């Protein structure tokens, strides 16, 4: 009966209730949209970083932590093989590859510019960069004298696939080495600054150029990114047991800025959630206060009939709950609908420093629906406490005298 009376009371003044529900609905739609947008932005950044860096990397801890250059902490091939063998024994490993990075110069007789090169294994599908090729083709075998350049670097040098360029770098021994390679392709990397310096060469060729047979790091991709940390801990223990001079760093440990990014977005979500909570709280508080005030005499009646203060209080709070449930459901559904419509528009944007349009999407899921719903429920119930308490505290005679 309490719920029945509360529900009927809520819809007693339809206009007033609809205004409350509208405020809740609009607030929750905005909140649901913001949460979905932020959620998707974080997820997209996470996916992008994890695709680029792998779920985790194995290498010399000084190199992985940026305290030494790659050439100072190269991993001997037999140790790299041991690490790869351990990794391949883990379930859910999507791929693993070795890499060496070096800085040098690239150019021809017309001039040279800085090159940040990555020696990769072309046969490893996780790092063949095939989807980024905008001209020419990807690298061939691991020993081929080939290079794929960032599109902007290619443009700066005035070279196209089929042209030959010279690559020069310092060897492990500290001497200089150079080689002429064929540009086989151009890639669009997505970040302009990286693309102006980037060159991909086969790992075997890079090792010959650097005069080493070591690798700088092992990159590992997982089917489930959430396994990164447990696997990292497991491998660190194994390396320690086998006395391998290696360490594991997960994708988020390798990108400290991601934590800052996540904190920023979380703060933004939190502020929006708080703002919507306050908006709903005060809107519903005003409506419920007026509504409860109008029914003070009814409070007197039910108290005179023997209803306890607690029952009266619970009745009014139930009204807040009913508004919260109805408004919360309506807002969550409206938020999901707006997000789905927004996603169907297929909007894109070019991020700062980027040169490739990225899709703007809004996530629609359990959290983007549940959080707004709980915000509505919490705000409406909380806003009902004061007027409910005020009415319940009245003496029966005071309440009955109310006009």
């Amino acid at each position: 009966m309490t719920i029945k009376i509360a529900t009927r009371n809520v819809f007693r003044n339809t206009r007033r209730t609809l205004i409350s529900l509208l405020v809740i609905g609009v607030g929750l739609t905005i909140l649901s949209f913001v949460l979905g947008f932020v959620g998707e932005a974080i997820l997209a950044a996470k996916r992008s970083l994890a695709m680029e860096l792998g779920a985790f990397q194995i290498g010399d801890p000084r190199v992985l932590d940026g305290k030494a250059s790659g050439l100072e902490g190269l991993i001997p091939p037999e140790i790299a093989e041991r690490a790869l063998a351990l990794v391949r024994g883990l379930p859910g490993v999507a791929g693993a590859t070795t890499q060496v990075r070096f800085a040098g110069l690239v150019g021809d007789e017309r001039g040279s510019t800085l090159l940040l090169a990555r020696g990769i294994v072309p046969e490893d599908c996780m790092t063949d960069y095939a989807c980024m090729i905008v001209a020419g083709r990807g690298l061939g075998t691991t020993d081929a004298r080939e290079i794929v350049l960032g599109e902007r670097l290619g443009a700066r040098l005035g070279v196209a696939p089929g042209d030959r360029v010279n690559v020069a770098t310092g060897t492990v021994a500290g001497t200089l080495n150079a080689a002429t390679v064929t540009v086989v392709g151009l890639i669009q990397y997505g970040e302009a600054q990286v693309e102006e310096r980037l060159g991909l060469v086969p790992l075997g060729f890079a090792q010959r150029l650097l005069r080493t047979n070591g690798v700088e790091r092992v990159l590992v991709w997982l089917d489930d990114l959430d396994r990164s940390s447990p696997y990292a801990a497991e491998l660190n223990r194994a390396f320690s047991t086998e006395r391998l001079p290696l360490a594991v760093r997960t994708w988020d440990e390798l990108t400290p800025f991601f934590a800052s990014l996540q904190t920023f977005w979380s703060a933004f979500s939190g502020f929006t959630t708080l703002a919507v909570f306050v908006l709903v709280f005060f809107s519903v508080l005003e409506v419920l206060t007026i509504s409860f005030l109008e029914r003070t005499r009814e409070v007197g009646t039910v108290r005179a009939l023997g209803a306890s203060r607690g029952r009266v209080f619970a009745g009014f709070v139930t009204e807040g709950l009913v508004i919260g449930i109805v408004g919360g459901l309506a807002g969550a559904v409206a938020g999901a609908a707006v997000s789905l419509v927004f996603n169907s528009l297929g909007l894109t944007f070019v991020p700062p420093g980027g040169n490739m349009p990225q899709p703007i999407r809004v996530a629609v899921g359990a959290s983007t629906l549940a959080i707004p719903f709980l915000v509505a429920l919490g705000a409406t119930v909380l806003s009902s406490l004061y007027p409910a308490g005020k009415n319940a505290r009245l003496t029966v005679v005071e309440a009955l005298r109310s006009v």
Partner: protein
Amino acid sequence: MQQGSFCYVAGTPVIEAQGLTKFYTLGKETVRALDRVDFTATQGDFAVINGPSGSGKTTLLNMFALIDRPSEGEVLFEEKPTSRLTEGELALLRREKIGLVFQTFNLIPVLSVAENVEYPLLLTKTPRAERRERVAARLDEVGLSGFERRRPDELSGGQRQRVAVARALVTEPRAVLADEPTANLDSGTGKQIMELLQGLNRDHCVTFLVVTHDPSVVGYAQRVLTIRDGRIQGEEKRGAPGPA
């Protein structure tokens, strides 16, 4: 509830006032609304408390209904003092042993006729089947069978007061207290309501205390108390009540 035309335990005190005094503070002034009122209503009584506006009759009824506390004196319900009872204990007494009829009917507008009558039974946690049975019986008794699903705003004033009477009786209380039950009704409807209350008093052996300033109501009472300036001025006992 004892049904029939004879009240077996007539004479047993139900509500008693002993030196009942009530002060109100209005600004710097203290008003004495009741002044040492002594009165006993026994089982089966049909008493009318009569007096002009401001005489203190509603204040007295509020004390008897246990919704207001005296400044001095004591209200005894079934011979037990009530001044030391907690709010919760008073509420329990009200829901189980007292029925109230208000001048302005005071029905809950969002509930149907049947739900309004059922409401006090929900407070006493009466089982569903028994609730339905009692509601149907009381509505039949006040002549509102067939009106169960109507809302109060779909009823006339007289019908609303009948619903209020059914609600007051549904818990089978020891006393029904009515505050100006005919004040918002036309004379014909008021007469019907008083005849209804009189019949229910006769049939159920329930004590009825009616507060009024309407002289036509007085004729239905076995006992008529006149109150003025917060004091009982006198009591008239009538053997065979009937309409004035």
